[in-house]
């Protein structure tokens, strides 16, 4: 029962794969048994207490999880924070071409704590993306996308795409110069599609250019999509709980001694890192709230003048660089979408039987080069597309795709991996375990 390629997760849902450490059969985690009669009455009719207990209290969690595993909880926290601040911001926002910019300024100046709510929401989006990139990089480094977690990974890619759409539409709402022109550039991407491209763009705009109809529909969808994300996150966590967490060793837990109860260990680890993360979040919100905001967005949208330096928000910059590094319009758009869609295929592109990069010395090096390429593309996305920046963008773009399409399939065949530990306990406690 060691992660060989089979179709189904072994022996049903987690934690039924765990054996008892004394050898007497399968391990059964504690079950929710309320002492209070009222709670028993509710539980018999709607077993939410039992669900919560078995999912986040008694849930067996690999005992060797490191802090990179807390980012799922951080992301859940940030989603709640964005929804809460977003809902209260909508109480003061006007989604009209004439009123949007002024309503945001009114929020900043007149609404009680409006400045705080706006900065929380705008910087919260950046922190949300920072956390999602850490979360994705963790998955790639430790092989969390491999069998049996392929669907979990793909759900994650879907969440990421929804986040990108939500973030883009949210940025349009203040109706500044950057909002308007980012909307124009991104919607124009679809004009690259042959034959149906232009009708699609007109349909997206609701007019002959980006205008009030565009703003209003983006507002509606920006309110809707976070709740769609919430739904897919529920599926994501469900898929996780069917197969159980991966862990830094990439070796399946064998007995209950390889695990600890989720509460209090993982719960407190999550809460602790959420607090640390909030310090970084608070640093932006209270000391440098406009650092990540483009100055041009303080100019009301002018459909007649394009800013000299259109840049998307930092979390889109790598894809922006990939788009601009391809000289052909349609191929550039295809490369842009392919750079995200390729992620969905890595459970099958990576042929290695070994999950964690800890035991894959070559993969580790190629992976970090790939991270450097991503950061490099991000930096290049903020530069004007000329001279050395174009050359570097093309080099990094080639490596970006080569990592998925060449390195991952080949390394699985040719890489000499390090020997895996016999169990998680052994990797944590040494051979005495």
């Amino acid at each position, binding site marked *: 029962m060691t992660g060989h390629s089979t179709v189904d997760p072994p022996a049903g849902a987690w934690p039924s794969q765990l054996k008892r450490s004394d050898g007497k059969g399968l391990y059964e985690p504690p079950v929710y048994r309320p002492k209070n009669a009222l709670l028993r009455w509710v539980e018999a009719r709607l077993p939410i207490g039992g669900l919560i207990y078995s999912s986040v209290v008694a849930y067996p969690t690999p005992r060797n999880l490191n802090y990179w595993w807390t980012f799922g909880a951080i992301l859940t926290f940030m989603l709640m924070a964005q929804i809460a601040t977003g809902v*209260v911001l909508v109480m003061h926002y006007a989604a009209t071409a004439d009123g949007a910019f002024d309503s945001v300024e009114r929020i900043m100046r*007149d609404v*009680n704590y*409006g400045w705080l*709510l706006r900065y929380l929401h705008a910087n919260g989006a950046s922190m949300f993306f920072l956390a999602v990139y850490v979360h994705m990089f963790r998955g790639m480094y430790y092989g969390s996308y491999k069998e049996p977690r392929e669907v979990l990974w793909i759900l994650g890619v879907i969440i990421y795409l929804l986040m990108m759409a939500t973030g883009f539409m949210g940025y349009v709402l203040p109706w500044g110069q950057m909002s308007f022109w980012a909307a124009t550039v991104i919607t124009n991407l679809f004009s690259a599609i042959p034959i149906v491209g232009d009708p699609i763009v007109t349909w997206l705009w609701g007019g002959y250019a980006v205008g009030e109809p565009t703003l209003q529909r983006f507002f509606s969808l920006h309110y809707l999509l976070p709740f769609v994300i919430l739904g897919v996150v529920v599926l994501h966590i469900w898929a996780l709980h069917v197969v159980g967490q991966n862990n830094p060793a990439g070796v399946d837990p064998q007995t209950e001694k390889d695990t600890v109860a989720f509460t209090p260990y993982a719960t407190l680890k999550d809460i602790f890192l959420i607090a640390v993360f909030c310090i970084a979040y608070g640093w932006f919100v209270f000391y440098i709230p406009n650092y990540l905001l483009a100055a041009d967005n303080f100019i009301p949208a002018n459909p007649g003048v394009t800013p000299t330096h259109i840049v998307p928000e930092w979390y889109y910059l790598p894809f922006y660089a990939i788009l601009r590094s391809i000289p052909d319009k349609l191929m550039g758009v295809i490369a842009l979408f392919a750079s995200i869609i390729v992620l969905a295929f890595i459970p099958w592109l990576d042929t290695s039987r070994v999950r964690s990069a800890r035991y894959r010395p070559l993969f580790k090096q190629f992976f970090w080069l790939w991270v450097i390429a991503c950061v490099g593309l991000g930096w290049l996305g903020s530069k004007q597309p000329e001279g050395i920046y174009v050359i570097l963008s093309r080099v990094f773009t080639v490596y970006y795709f080569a990592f998925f399409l060449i390195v991952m399939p080949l390394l699985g065949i040719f890489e000499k991996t390090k020997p895996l530990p016999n169990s998680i306990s052994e990797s944590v406690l040494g051979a005495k375990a």
Partner: protein
Amino acid sequence: MTTASSAEPTRRDFLYIATAVVGAVGGAAALVPLIAQMNPDASTVAAGAPIEVDLAPIADNQAIKVFWRSKPIYIWHRTKEEIQHAQNVDVATLPDPQSDAARVKDGHDQWLVVIGICTHLGCIPLAHEGDYGGFFCPCHGSQYDTSGRIRRGPAPANLAIPPYAFVSDSKIRIG
């Protein structure tokens, strides 16, 4: 979960409880802006500053309506008859006992300034209507007299008096 069970509270217990308390205070503090943002914002509060109304154009027996803080305010230049009617009522028989003198300013009893919101469910009563020569609310039939006091109908209280003062004999400041 490994717990050292002991009768005495341990250092660990103290740390857990202290952290939970600080966390709870932080959580409550985080809720404050989310709830406070629904209060009137600075521009609404600024629009609610006092207003001055010139009484000179208001003819005898005329009632005008002005708005202050989004509330309709009746300013009624009462005739001698209307003042008499208001003052001659036995206060004890009123549903909401209040003398006319308590509802007007000294030396200016020809000016009735009331908030034109029916104390029943908030409709605007009509001036110079009803059996008492005062106000009549068309929504559910409440009747007010020439001092704006409730006489008949479902409304429980007299029409409210806004804060106001005479800046001069022909000008008042409301608010």
